[in-house]
């Protein structure tokens, strides 16, 4: 059984007690301790900056040309915090409760409670850094609603919240670079973890410009490398987002937890053709005001504006009157799929539903007219005013939609469909964010810990920054306090030499295959297998077939992939080949995990396990555990279980009706 090192005591007191009693490293010793941070998104940048401020010697790595480009930057809608500024009944407990329930009772109580506790500090810290959050006329911070909650606790900066938070963390990071506390290695990719005497002591990184391999020592290695949604090929992730760092860690012994828990986001721009390289998210905040519908008649080919009100099926409002269009993501996605599979989909592909702003435009227009004292405003005037209000709230999202689709969302309803967005699974970590490999940590989306089987909107930014700003500075010190007696290890140590050699050999093997098929073509095929069999719904036969297909694909990849260019130069195709090779192996484990979990929960929907009205049917008796997988050989994994103990919340069937 895995030891998650959850402190004893009441849930409310655990983190306070932990902080009060954890071991510390004195400033003189911190100066001597190198720490490696891989990834510079919200988790990585905030961790690197905070550890630099504390005095550690930090080395930070990112594959992009600048740390400011990490994919956290694309988060649109907002960040949750239990501030209760709106006086609408929010509290630390309620944020904790919503997150556990939203995760369908598959997250660890102690971690989630800590997340809720520090959520308020994050907002304070970001404001102090100069993050320009949206404000009310009185000068105070503004909030909006998000899915899965009934309070307004989401802080935002128009549709660019992730960008503004990341720029805040990036600036804090660059300040530490200027002060000499952090050394930044951009355009570097981690290709292995180096272990000495069972502990993580460094990494092998590849300089992506020169192709050279580098050995870096660190007393600890923090992986802040995000999620693995690109295993599906088409996802809302950036093109470069990959699983390689966490997968290499997995191959070095770190357990990979709940890999089948992936999030399909309900509101994305639908796929338009085979050429498509990525999918674009339309922020969940659009569900605040937009109404989702399909025609009541099957195969209705009329234009949306020609379909009268009474012939529209607002299926979320119909099925879930309490939460309506703001049900959690997994529920909204499945409901869209259900309608499309039943033949009610819209658009050329019939794989889309409408997200309609007409009602919101009219409602806002009326409010605006009333504000201006125009009691006899015509419908046209009201619509003009309403469009202005909607533009201020969601303008950048509407612009994005119209650029991609060529349609005007102010005039016609948007067409949306679910797409892969986030991965709840990740490296298994204990309460201190340490993996089962001592010295190796995982933060943010790279770990599995806080979102269970489904993440609520605006909680990813919260978790990334919580881990980096407010958790790791304490928990890392608690472990490094014992390391001060150990001298730094020179990278001439045989373990570093051996790891470097192994990486070099793998690259040479890949390059020398010299086959006929491009890396991209393999990635596309992998994505199709995973999307079809381990996507929004899964079943036993499909998963078994997928496992066989992926094993065959792996064999084909390693005998027929073609990588142009040289090893010792800037070679994006080679970078991609390394990543796709890892995605293929992860894809198999996802299916193994999905096959093992004979229940439905959150984003994991097994067709065999559903309630009569099509909701996810959990099996708490047999599956209330974290599935942490240890690699034991090619195509072989050993399952380790962490039992989830609910001491405060009593799990029940999630109800958003």
């Amino acid at each position: 059984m895995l030891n998650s090192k959850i402190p004893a005591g009441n849930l409310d007191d655990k983190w306070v007690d932990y902080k009060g009693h954890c071991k510390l490293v004195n400033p003189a010793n911190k100066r001597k301790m190198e720490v490696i941070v891989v990834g510079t998104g919200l988790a990585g940048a905030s961790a690197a900056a905070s550890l630099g401020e504390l005095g550690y010697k930090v080395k930070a790595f990112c594959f992009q040309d600048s740390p400011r480009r990490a994919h956290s930057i694309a988060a649109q809608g907002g960040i949750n915090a239990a501030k209760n500024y709106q006086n609408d009944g929010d509290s630390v407990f309620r944020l904790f409760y919503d997150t556990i329930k939203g995760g369908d009772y598959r997250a660890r109580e102690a971690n989630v409670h800590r997340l809720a506790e520090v959520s308020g500090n994050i907002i304070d810290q970001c404001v102090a850094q100069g993050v320009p959050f949206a404000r009310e006329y009185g000068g105070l911070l503004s909030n909006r609603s998000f899915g899965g909650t009934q309070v307004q606790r989401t802080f935002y900066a128009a549709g660019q919240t992730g960008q503004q938070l990341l720029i805040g963390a990036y600036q804090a990071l660059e300040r530490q670079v200027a002060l000499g506390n952090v050394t930044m290695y951009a355009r570097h990719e981690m290709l292995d973890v180096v272990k000495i005497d069972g502990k993580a002591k460094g990494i092998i990184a590849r300089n992506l410009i020169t192709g050279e391999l580098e050995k870096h020592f660190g007393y600890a290695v923090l992986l802040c490398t995000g999620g693995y949604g690109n295993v599906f090929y088409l996802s809302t992730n950036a093109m470069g987002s990959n699983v390689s760092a966490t997968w290499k860690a997995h191959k070095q012994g770190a357990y990979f937890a709940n890999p089948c828990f992936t999030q399909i986001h309900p509101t994305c721009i639908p796929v338009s053709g085979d050429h498509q390289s990525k999918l674009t998210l339309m922020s969940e905040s659009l569900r605040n005001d937009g109404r989702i519908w399909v025609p009541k008649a099957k195969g209705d080919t009329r234009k949306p504006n020609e379909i009268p009100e009474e012939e529209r099926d607002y299926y979320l409002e119909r099925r879930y009157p309490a939460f309506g269009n703001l049900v959690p993501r997994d529920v909204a996605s499945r409901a869209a799929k259900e309608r499309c599979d039943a033949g009610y989909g819209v658009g050329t592909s019939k794989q889309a539903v409408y997200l309609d702003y007409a009602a919101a435009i009219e409602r806002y227009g009326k409010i605006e007219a009333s504000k201006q004292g125009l009691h006899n405003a015509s419908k046209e005037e009201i619509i003009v005013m309403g469009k202005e209000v909607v533009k201020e709230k969601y303008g950048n999202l509407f612009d994005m939609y119209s650029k991609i689709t060529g349609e005007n969302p102010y005039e016609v309803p948007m067409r949306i469909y679910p797409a892969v967005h986030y991965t709840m699974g990740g490296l298994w970590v204990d309460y201190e964010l340490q993996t089962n490999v001592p010295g190796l940590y995982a933060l943010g989306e790279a770990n599995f810990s806080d979102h269970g089987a489904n993440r609520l909107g605006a909680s990813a930014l919260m978790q990334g920054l919580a881990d980096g700003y407010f958790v790791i500075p304490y928990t890392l010190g608690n472990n490094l306090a014992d390391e001060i007696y150990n001298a730094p290890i020179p990278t001439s140590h045989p373990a570093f030499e051996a790891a470097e050699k192994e990486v070099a050999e793998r690259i040479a093997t890949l390059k020398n295959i010299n086959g006929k098929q491009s890396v991209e073509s393999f990635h596309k095929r992998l994505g199709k297998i995973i999307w079809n069999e381990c996507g929004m719904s899964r079943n036993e036969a499909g998963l078994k077939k997928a496992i066989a297909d992926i094993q065959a694909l792996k064999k084909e990849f390693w005998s027929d992939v073609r990588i142009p260019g040289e090893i010792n130069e800037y070679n994006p195709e080679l970078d991609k080949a390394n990543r796709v090779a890892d995605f293929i192996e992860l894809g198999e484990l996802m299916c193994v995990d999905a096959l093992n979990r004979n229940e439905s929960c959150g984003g994991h929907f097994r067709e065999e396990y559903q309630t009569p009205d099509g909701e996810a049917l959990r099996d708490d008796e047999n599956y209330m555990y974290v599935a942490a997988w240890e690699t034991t050989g090619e195509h072989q994994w050993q399952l380790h279980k962490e039992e989830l103990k609910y001491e405060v919340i009593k799990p029940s069937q999630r109800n958003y009706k």
Partner: protein
Amino acid sequence: MAHNHMNLKLKVWRQKNANASGAFVKYDVNDISDEMSFLEMLDVLNEKLITTGEEPIAFDHDCREGICGMCSLYIDGKPHGPWQANTTCQLHMRAFKDGDTITIEPWRSNAFPIVKDLTVDRGAFDRIIQAGGYVSVNTGNAVDGNSLPINKDDADASFAAAMCIGCGACVAACKNSSAMLFLSAKVSHLAQLPQGEPERKSRVLNMVAQMDKEGFGSCTNTGACEAACPKEISIANIARLNKEYLRAGLTQE
């Protein structure tokens, strides 16, 4: 919906590495759907090059939704191509028509050395931020977020400047390769917030000094930067930067 398909000719800048000399190379790309993005069109070309044993064209890109700032490309003489307020990754092929010849170059500036083909090194921007583009506040020092009300218009104006994605289109558009729009966006973001006040003078002086050191040219207020900016960062920020710089210089201790 019937999609239009087109055949295009491309003239693309190819350069092996920073030290090699480069040249334009011509390519034909056929059967391109007008629903594709510009980068997807390049993906199609690259797939073809890979299968015929040629090296694919290197270009920077990541999020492909117009926010990370990684994509670049000087397309037919315009940074990020013909559409206003747009990044290359959001440019779609319906902007072009069958038979067009499209010229694709990297960002051109001494301060952005070429890495390979269309990829350049924009590390100079990070170093400008390191010179002062931040508020010096350590984690844990913050007071309650609502303890200091900020006038909504100031917060909105600050946000409008903070939207800069650091892509470098402003530098590429400028005949002098000036980085003034980029720098002014950061100065404006922080100068309009009370949090930025304590370091207001040192920030602008140090950032301008670093910009000069990086080899960017001078600003002559032509406005090409504003026209090319995918986030429509206003040239008014440059006026504010000049004011901040003058004020800081005159009142320097």
